[in-house]
């Protein structure tokens, strides 16, 4: 041992050199081994199953975050869901008439107002915007549930409704309604005219 302690660098260098020397391998044998290893790659569904079955710390953390987020989302949705007994205000009359030129269709600025204090979002859908809930979102400037939007409409008869929280089809309860024989849920009717 004393002898080794006297010459540590020399011994370690010799050991490293010995270990670094790899035995010669046959290229064909190496290729065959690699091919077999590749062939043993598990199917994606098996990999997912192994991942689910084997405990791992990052996955557990991800699960915890996702579960908390899901719980918070559902709790929030339950809090803001519309409840029966909400009052809605019928659309106000036209406030402004825009005439671009005699040949162009005249458009009347028409304001829609609805009182839905428990709603998180309200959209106006109708024939005039292709029943697209993303086209005309209402705003609640006071924050007290009085939702409003102003749209330009040609004079005439227009069918419309509100979509509350992206899910609930809500005809305007204070405007005349009309049954829908095609799909069963009533629409509201607005008769728009120039002043």
């Amino acid at each position, binding site marked *: 041992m004393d002898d080794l302690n006297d010459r540590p660098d020399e011994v370690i260098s010799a050991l490293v050199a010995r270990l670094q020397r790899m035995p010669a391998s046959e290229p064909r044998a190496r290729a065959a081994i690699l091919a077999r290893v590749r062939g043993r790659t598990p199917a994606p569904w098996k990999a997912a199953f192994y991942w*689910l079955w084997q405990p791992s710390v990052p*996955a*557990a953390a991800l699960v915890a975050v996702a*579960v908390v987020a899901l719980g918070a989302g559902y709790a929030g949705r339950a809090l803001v869901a519309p409840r029966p007994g909400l009052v809605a205000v019928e659309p106000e009359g036209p406030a402004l008439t825009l005439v671009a030129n005699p040949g162009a269709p005249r458009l009347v600025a028409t304001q829609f107002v609805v009182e839905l204090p428990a709603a998180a979002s309200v959209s106006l859908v109708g024939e005039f915007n*292709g*029943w697209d809930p993303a086209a005309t979102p209402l705003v609640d400037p006071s924050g007290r549930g009085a939702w409003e939007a102003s749209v330009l409409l040609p004079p005439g*008869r227009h069918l419309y409704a509100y979509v509350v929280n992206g899910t609930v089809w809500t005809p305007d309860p204070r405007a005349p309604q009309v049954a829908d024989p095609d799909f069963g*849920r009533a629409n509201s009717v607005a*008769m728009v*005219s120039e002043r």
Partner: protein
Amino acid sequence: MLAKVAICAVLLAPVVSAQSRNTVPDLRSIPELAYEFDKAVALGIPMAPLEAKAREGFLKGATAERVHVAVRNLSAKMVEAKEALAPVQSPNEILEGAKALQQGVPSSVLRAMRRTQRTRNLEVSLGVLTELVVRKIPMQRAADEVNKMLQRGVTEGVLIAFGRGVQGDISAGLAPTVALDIRSRGVLSLPQGPAQGAALAPALRIPPP
């Protein structure tokens, strides 16, 4: 293990949620609807109302089959309205004509309206007629009143005010025919304005000396 089952639930939640939100699919991806849209282009009727009808159906939670039936019916009525209202003045005129037909107004009424109003856009008049029929006024009575007003050359604003008045009176409890009588007397007693006179009989105007 429970945690991993939970993550599967999280991953599936958007799928379940999308079903309950009545999302509107890509309409063109449904072959039956794509066929109806292409047919509309070939027949020269506007496609936008058909797309809107499909979107309305999906938004209301209807099945694809039911949406297809509704779109097909509207398409057929639009073709019928286009023929009855020829020469049509605007795509919306065809749509309003189709809606009137769907409420039971026969195409002969549309033809009669066009005969007397060759150049006037009947979009508003047809909307008012539809509204009257929807409010349970007998179709022929409603058509007669609207035709009388058209022949008198009333403006669209007066027509809409008339329809809205009848609508309001019925909501207030009046019988539909009584509401119609009261409101039509009010409109027909109005003096004819210069524009109304011109629309009624432009050939009778005497040129200034």
